[in-house]
């Protein structure tokens, strides 16, 4: 876990509601995506979550997962982003 460079970061931002984590995690488990870390806060009613996941054994391609997560986000009224962790590593670490 020291190096997150080959991992993926999923961020979920939106109005808090019941079952956001459940929905996202169900999708991830159904598609062979392993969750390594979750952190989550609620700021003035807004749900803010970041997950570090391993997609190396995912059933679908990166872009397909992105599309699916996008659709799930739309269903529950939140924005779900799925990005390679390297961009954050590079920007915030020397």
């Amino acid at each position, binding site marked *: 876990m020291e190096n*997150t460079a080959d991992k993926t970061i999923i961020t979920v931002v939106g109005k808090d509601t019941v079952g956001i984590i459940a929905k996202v995690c169900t999708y991830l488990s159904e598609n062979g995506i392993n969750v390594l870390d979750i952190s989550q806060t609620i700021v003035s009613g807004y749900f803010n979550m970041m997950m570090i996941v391993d997609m190396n054994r995912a059933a679908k391609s990166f872009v397909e997962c992105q599309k699916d997560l996008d659709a799930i986000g739309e269903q529950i009224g939140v924005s779900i*982003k799925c990005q390679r962790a390297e961009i*954050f590593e590079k920007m915030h670490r020397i």
Partner: protein
Amino acid sequence: MINIFEVNETNNMVEHENLDVRTITIGISLLSCIDSDLKKLNQNIYECITGVAKDLARVAKEIEAEYGIPIVNKRISVTPIALIGGAACKTSEDFATIADTMDRAAEAVGADLIGGYSALVSKGMTKADELLIRSIPIALCRTKRVCSSVNLASTKTGINMDAVRLMGEILLEVAERSKDRDSVDCMKLVVFCNAPDDNPFMAGAFHGVTEADAVINVGVSGPGVVKTALEKVRGENFEVLCETIKRTAFKVTRVGQLVAQEASRRLGIPFGIIDLSLAPTPAIGDSVADILREIGLEYAGAPGTTAALAMLNDQVKKGGVMASSYVGGLSGAFIPVSEDQGMIDSVKAGAITLEKLEAMTCVCSVGLDMIAIPGDTKATTISGMIADEMALGMVNQKTTAARLIPVIGKGVGDTVEFGGLFGYAPIMPVNRYSCDEFINRTGRIPAPIHSFKN
């Protein structure tokens, strides 16, 4: 390990502060395409460009999606065409056929622009150089994506005043040919002193002869990110101000470095350089002039502007150099007028003049950029403005450039619309006094004394 605040900071930069990678530019050497038969030459060029750059658009799209960072432009630069076409082209029209080929090839691979319709004439012009330069008005008015540049001077060679005089006339001809569209084709033409071989930004990109067969150069952006970071340190001392700019420039450049390395890996083309330039767009919150205002000026152009810009430019470099193993191109703050809403506001308020812009180009990249001037400006006056800008570059051992747009049929007080990323510009007044006799002298201005370093 990455935390939620860092992730949010990065995503905020993209969503609210206009962080993007401004361009991935593939430099392609066309030296192997040279042939004395024009038809064969054009065919070679088309095959070479479409072969090397065939995956450019796809790879850029993939990187964009996977990392969540917008890549605004996909571009190509090629070896200066005056060198490539010399053996086959006997007329300016012959040269223009190469521009047609470049345009078709760029369109075929989904590149936004293609640069390198260029000549390097800082000391003298060959027959081919002159034919190419004279073909620029024909080439630019009948192509969409082709950009042209001419290197007129360098610290080592001095200023080729014959070419400076010619470019004044050529620029007016380009303006005249596109006068029904506000002389918009002038945007695709830039003249340089000390032009870099690895510049990824248009209109001045070309693939220098010192370069390998193909190379990936990336230009980053991010004026909005710097501006937002500075909002948090209002009233603080210069040390804090400089530190904040450096830290921000580091973060922005790291994104460029990552994109460049990924593009290089996926395309199988070596990585060249990152260009650290702060490149503005007309979008609100994507302005270099707004950074200057945030630093403490009422408008860009107010007294203190040159000092503030010098400091900004230097801190961007210091932060950026730490973030990338190879930095090159123009690397500095751009101060185009039409492409920067804050700069347009300054012109409208009467806060900035051409003379102040000229002073600002002494301390940043690149030069008098995207400046609309009255259409009745004389060719010799334009050449005089170009010569001044070349002298600044020559003496200060830096790259300078001029991208002026004489708008035929319009004068001071009018505004021109260039559309999209190119924005709009109020026409700026030009000094009306003559420099005819100076410009009409023939020959060149010798290299300055401090260029003799051997």
